[in-house]
Structures are given as structure tokens and as C-alpha cells.
């Protein structure tokens, strides 16, 4: 006998217009949050920006929803209209516990790891996995490391045959001792097949309850940095699971059981929670990327500079926006004393003078504006965040290097608007010689891979399309060789389910 379902499936009448399918964006900063409700046409129906004592998404959600519905309710919006909830965080839960970020990290290792590390590529051991890691972090996170045959060459062909027997033997050694496994492979970003095959073999030995993180999911060229990020990611997985569970639960509790949750990435796009489980590091700094996107959208400028403010009107940093998206940083990002291949938003701090008076220092702001630019052209400076209006009011007039300084509408909630309208993205890359007769086939294939990657991350399969193609020469190679990088994007899929009746 079926007892009463505590979470009954709700369904809107089938003739509900698409415009009424709303996305709720919430952006968390350390001590504040912003929220915005955007309809199917991209119109912002409601927004709010508040101080919040607790930076946890689960605590913020009901408060945000109350403020948003107070504005949207009179416009005929009900909770049933919200089919997607998109969240941006400024810091990944768990990272604060890693050494280098917090001197009291010894409280944390029980919640991080333990992981096993596998590298596919035996002839790479001059620098074994975790080479150069701080010894205490190494000891706290990893119980075993190995290198077995596998990996790809630059052109995607096999580097070594995959050593299935070696993988199985290692899996039997670590079974029952690890909470996750990190697998990296030579040239995995151009050819992940060995990582995928290894995951299958490991799963057969370890069972489905031991998650396996693959380096091509984390991404970035440079085996060591990508491997480092993969290991950190594997160590964070248990925490990510817990966080994802609490997030889903809080959606149900808030009256949004049907809404699909998405999490913001630091490249300005979003991903489903399932996808984010093994990629939570990509969320680090996502609030900045969301803020930049929101500012550009609200101001109607796709090429601009964005200044972030604190509540008292002090600028904290400036970033550049190209094609509506924040410019990413160059070079490795160091986390917990370990270089990783993660890219974040290229933020230029405005460096307020130590002990100086609060408020804008025009010279420093102008310097940051110039450093953030990627070209000599003057650009509009969009000021966002809780102190946006205060800062614009306090500026004495024109700022060098800018065409205008403005506070876009709903500037305080720009990050929430940015995450609410963010697309889902996917990338793919390949390297091939220009003389290859298969060049055009490879180009077509990479485009399709990028599109598939976007769909995998939660893009609407009908609307995901290629948005950029970049080809660059590989240096110091005898035969002219090119690397092609393709990015695809699409709107986040809707969790709208067809109505069905329980019998």
C-alpha cells in the first residue's frame, strides 16, 4: 500500500507558457547574497541583495525565496513556475580546510580523502604523482600512488597500451582503503579513452560506491597540474556529496522539489549538480564570473570592464568582459600550496591602501582598469555589488581609460542575474598536423565533442551549439602542427517533467 507521498509531484497545466518557466539565480559571497528571478525571455522579474550571517546555500535559499516571491508573487508567479535554481559560490566548501588556506587545517583531514592516485603513462616517472606536494598534505590525502601503462600521444593515438592487469591489481590493493580514486592520463584532454576504460575496470573491482575522478573532467593541459587538481578533487568528493544532498533537500523543503539545481563555474557557465560532484573545484571563484556576466547583460554591453564593490562603496577588483564573459586568468592556480591547472577569472585587485580611508582611490581604480584591459580601446566600466551606487556617486567624474562609468540596473544583484541567465558550456580539444588528410574530419569531430560535452554538463540538447573555435600553432615542432579548441554552449535544460497522475 502506498502511503501519502511527502513530496508529491506537482505539475503545471500543459498549456503553461514557456515564458512563465523561471530561473532563480542565487549568488553567495562571504557575508552577503543576492538573488534574482528571470523569466523565459530573460526579463528580470525580481531581485534582492542582503547581508547574510551564514554563507551556506541551504540557509540562504529560503530567505532568498521569501524576498523574491514577495516581489514576484503580485506579478502572478508561484513557486511552481521556478523550474531551475542556479547557484554561484565564491569559495568551494572544503577548500578552506586545506593547508595554505587555513593554519588550523588539522581539524579537517578526516573529511578529506583518503584517495588513491593512478597515472596512466608508465614512462613519465621522472616526476611521479604528487611530486612537489607538501609532505603533510601528501600524507593526509593519499594512501597509494601508482603509474601503469596507458595515455595518449599529442595526436590522440595510444602512447602506451592500457595496462588492464596492472589496474586491476592496484584496485585490489586499495579496495576498502580509499574514499575515491583520482585517475590522470597523458594527453587526456585530447584523448580521454584510457581514463574512461580505466574507470570501467576500477568500478568493476571497487564497486559503484567508490567514486572515480578522471583528469579530463577537470581539464587543462600540463599533466602534473591537471593531476594535482584531480587528486584534490577526489579528496573533496565526500564533502561534495554531502553538500549536494543538502542542497537537493533544501530545494524540497523550500517548496521547489521539481526544480533542477545548477552550480556556477568559474568560466561564467553553469553545470548540473550531478556533473559538479566530480568537478566542484571548478566552482571556485564562480561568483565573480557570474557578476561579470550579469553586469554585461544588465548594462547591454558585451565588451566592458566590471568593478566589484563592498557595501561601503570600496572597489575590490576589476575584471574584463569579452563577448559577455569574464576574461580567464593565465597560468596555474595554486591551491593549498599545490599548482593546479584551474583557470579562474582574471581579477585585478584595486589594492586599497593599508589603513587608508575607505572609499574610492581614483588613481588606483584607473590603474586596475588599465591592467584589466586586453586592448587599448576605452571601455565602459560597469560597477556592481552592494556598494555600486555609492562608488559611482563618489567618483569625481570621468575615469581614464573608460568611455563611461555606470551602475547598471539591479547592480547590487548582478551576480544573481548573471548566474540565472548563464549557459551550460562544454569544451573539446585536439592536436593534429596541418598536413593530415583528416584535418577537416577532426575539426568536425571536435565540434561535435564540444557540443556533447555541453549536453553532458546539462545543456538543452536541442539548443547546444558551437560558440567559439580557436586554432593555434604548436611551438618547436618540425611538422606544422595545430591545436584546435572548440567551445559549445546551450541554455540549461529544464527539469520540467510531463505531468502524470498517481493511481
Amino acid at each position, binding site marked *: 500500500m502506498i502511503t501519502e507521498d511527502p513530496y508529491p509531484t506537482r505539475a503545471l497545466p500543459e498549456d503553461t507558457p514557456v515564458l512563465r518557466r523561471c530561473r532563480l539565480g542565487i549568488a553567495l559571497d562571504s557575508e552577503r547574497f543576492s538573488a534574482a528571478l528571470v523569466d523565459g525571455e530573460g526579463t528580470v522579474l525580481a531581485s534582492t541583495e542582503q547581508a547574510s550571517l551564514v554563507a551556506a546555500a541551504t540557509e540562504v535559499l529560503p530567505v532568498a525565496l521569501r524576498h523574491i516571491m514577495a516581489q514576484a508573487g503580485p506579478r502572478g508567479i508561484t513557486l511552481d513556475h521556478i523550474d531551475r535554481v542556479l547557484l554561484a559560490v565564491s569559495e568551494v566548501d572544503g577548500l578552506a580546510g586545506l593547508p595554505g588556506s587555513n593554519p588550523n587545517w588539522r581539524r579537517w583531514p578526516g573529511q578529506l580523502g583518503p584517495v588513491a592516485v593512478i597515472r596512466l603513462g608508465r614512462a613519465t*616517472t*621522472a616526476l611521479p604523482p604528487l611530486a612537489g606536494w607538501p609532505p603533510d598534505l601528501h600524507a593526509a590525502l593519499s594512501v597509494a600512488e601508482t603509474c601503469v601503462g596507458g595515455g595518449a600521444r599529442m595526436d590522440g593515438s595510444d602512447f602506451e597500451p592500457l595496462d588492464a592487469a596492472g589496474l586491476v591489481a592496484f584496485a585490489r590493493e586499495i579496495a576498502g582503503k580509499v574514499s575515491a580514486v583520482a585517475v590522470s592520463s*597523458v594527453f587526456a584532454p585530447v584523448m580521454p579513452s584510457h581514463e574512461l576504460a580505466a574507470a570501467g575496470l576500477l568500478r568493476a573491482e571497487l564497486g559503484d560506491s567508490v567514486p572515480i575522478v578522471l583528469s579530463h573532467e577537470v581539464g587543462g593541459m600540463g*599533466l602534473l597540474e591537471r593531476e594535482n587538481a584531480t587528486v584534490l578533487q577526489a579528496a573533496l568528493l565526500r564533502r561534495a556529496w554531502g553538500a549536494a544532498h543538502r542542497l537537493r533537500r533544501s530545494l524540497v523543503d523550500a517548496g521547489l522539489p521539481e526544480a533542477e539545481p545548477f552550480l556556477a563555474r568559474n568560466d561564467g557557465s553553469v553545470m548540473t549538480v550531478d556533473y559538479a560532484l566530480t568537478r566542484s573545484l571548478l566552482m571556485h571563484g564562480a561568483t565573480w564570473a557570474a557578476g561579470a556576466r550579469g553586469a554585461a547583460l544588465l548594462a547591454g554591453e558585451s565588451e566592458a570592464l566590471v568593478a566589484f564593490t563592498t557595501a561601503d562603496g570600496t572597489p575590490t577588483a576589476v575584471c574584463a568582459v569579452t563577448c559577455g564573459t569574464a576574461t580567464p586568468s593565465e597560468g596555474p592556480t595554486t591551491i593549498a600550496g599545490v599548482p593546479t591547472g584551474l583557470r579562474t577569472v582574471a581579477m585585478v585587485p584595486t589594492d586599497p591602501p593599508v589603513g587608508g580611508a575607505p572609499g574610492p582611490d581614483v588613481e588606483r581604480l584607473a590603474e586596475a582598469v588599465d591592467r*584589466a584591459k586586453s586592448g587599448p580601446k576605452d571601455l565602459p566600466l560597469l560597477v556592481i555589488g552592494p556598494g555600486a551606487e555609492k562608488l559611482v556617486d563618489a567618483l569625481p567624474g570621468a575615469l581614464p581609460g573608460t568611455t563611461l562609468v555606470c551602475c547598471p540596473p539591479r547592480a547590487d544583484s548582478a551576480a544573481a542575474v548573471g548566474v540565472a541567465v548563464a549557459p551550460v558550456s562544454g569544451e573539446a580539444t585536439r592536436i593534429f598536423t596541418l598536413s593530415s588528410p583528416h584535418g577537416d574530419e577532426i575539426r568536425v569531430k571536435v565540434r561535435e565533442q564540444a557540443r556533447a560535452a555541453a549536453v553532458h554538463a546539462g545543456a538543452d540538447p536541442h539548443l547546444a551549439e558551437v560558440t567559439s573555435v580557436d586554432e*593555434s600553432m604548436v*611551438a*618547436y615542432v618540425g611538422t606544422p602542427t595545430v591545436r584546435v579548441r572548440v567551445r559549445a554552449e546551450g541554455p540549461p535544460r529544464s527539469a520540467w517533467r510531463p505531468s502524470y497522475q498517481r493511481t
Partner: protein
Amino acid sequence: MRELDLPDLDDLARGAALLGSGGGGDPYIGTLLARAAITRHGPVRVVTVEELPPDALVVPVSMLGAPTVGVEKLPSGKEVHAALRALERVLGRAATHLVAIEIGGGNSMVPVAAAAETGLPLLDADAMGRAFPEAQMVLPTLSGISTTPMTVADDKGNTAVIDAVSNHWAERIARAICGEAGCSVYTADTVLTAAQARDTLVLGTLTLAQRAGAAIRLARAGHADPVRAVTDLLGGAVLAAGKVVDVSRATTGGFARGEAVVHGPDGTLVLSFQNEHLVARLADRVVATTPDLICVVDTETGEPVTTEALRYGFRVTVLGLPCDPRWTSPEGLALVGPPAFGYDCGYRPLPS
């Protein structure tokens, strides 16, 4: 004799990046390799050319390939050994000393790691005094010393021995092997006697790179001008200081060619680069060319900036550092002057 140990590596890497003139590959992986090797085997013995016994057999060892591959396909650690042993089999005698083929970029670190692993002493010198992209672009070529016998070793244990009719051919064949082996191989070539080492190498460059790296570090720590610290040590001239206002990169004909425009109070400097910075023009007047070293450093920190990293908005100082004088002979310029890289200008000595 002195010892090169772990604390010396960062200075050496920074100095080598500077002397790489914007190219030569990132010393980052090389530094990690050297650190791992020294951690395992202890510090490296560095000797001066005066300390070479008359019967010394000096062998330059280096990595050949693409940095894109180098950061992804890490070495197995056995490649240099394999190349060296293969060369010794051909020569019928053992190498007594290792040396760097170039002091700029990643290849400054390869022989450090190899010396730690093999226990052979490292000669304080190199064959270019900077970085160049091809095997024949070394000073011993000017003295008629053959690049071959040259051995090439990959990570799987394959080795090849090249006997070529010229050093240009050695480069072409080695490059073809490198491509087939996956664009990341190690070579041992340009074998030198003690006398040849003394006469054809640029001496003391390992120490010089280390001192340049230390000078930048110390200047920064002492809030002094790191750029001044470099020019005080290495001589040369500041060609321009200012802001990068444009960087363009073209990939015609399989060569990555680029130009960067640096706008400063003294005018606008246009830098032409391929893998390295090769020609600098101030108001259409050539002010510096290869084989002199054209080095770009961050004006504030003194950190070297590679051609790949150069971007709009960087505050940089462009330095012209004098090359080894043998490079400016007619034979030297034929090998590594501007026309050798496809530029139609002649060599122009640095402004004094």
C-alpha cells in the same frame, strides 16, 4: 669545483628564463626534474673549464621537442642515460663531463638533472650563451665541430644514432625522429674534447644565469630596481620601458611569428618574435637583433616574460644584452643573424 644544490635551482631557473630571450621552453618542468634528481642523488658537482683534465670528454645533453608535449608527456628519467650510453658505445669511451647545449630556458636544467643522476660533473658553460631553436645553432659549428655522432633517445628505450653530412642535416633528421617518437626526446651530441670545450663554449654561463636569477630576487626583496640589477650584472641596454599596447600572432607557413608593440615615454618599440625575440625596432629603426639577446622582463618584478605569455597591458622593460662576440662574425651571423630567421634586416649592434 662547487656544488649546485636544491636552494640554487630557483635562481638558476629564473636566470635561464631571462637568458632564453622569451623562448627556450619554460624551465618549470626542468626545475622539478632537477629537484627530484638532486633529492634522490645529492648535489651536482660544477666544474670550471680550467678544472677539466686534458683527456676530458664533454657531452652536451638536451631535450628536443615541443614544450606543449614536455608539460604533458613527462620524461621517464631514463632518456638522458640512454642517449648518453648510446653515444658512448659509438665513441668507444665514456663521457667524463656533461654540459648544457643552451643556457636559456628548459635546457639549462636538463643537464643538471642528468649530472645528478649519472654522478658526472657538470661543466659551467654552454654552447650558445642564450637559447636558439635548432641543433646547428651552436658556437662549435663555427669551429667546424660536428653535431654528430648524435644520439636520440625516447621514453620507451628506443635510441637512434645519427651520422650526418652537416650540422643542418643533423638537425633535420633529429627533428624528424623527434616527431615520430612523440615530440619529446633527449639528445647527446656535439662531443667536445677539453680543448674544444675551452675554445668553443661560452664559459661560466651556468653561474651567470644563477647570479642573474639571484640578482632579480635580491633586488625585489630589497625593494631595489630588479631591471637595474640585471643590467648591472649582464651589461647591455634598456631598449624600451613601457606598456605592451598590441600583440599579434600569425601562424603562416607553420611558423609562429608575432609582433609586440611596447609604448613608452621614449617612443614605440616593435618586437618581432618567433620562438624567441629576434628583432627590435624603435620608430622603424632597428635597434637590436639576434644574435644579441632581446629579453622582456616585468618592469616591477623583474620576472622574465616569454613570447607566449606576452599580452596587452603588461608593464615591461625590453633589454638588449650582448651575445657572445663570436656570434657577430660573418659565419656566426650567417647561422643565427636576422636573415636566418627570415627577416630582411642585417645585424645591428646594441646601442652603447
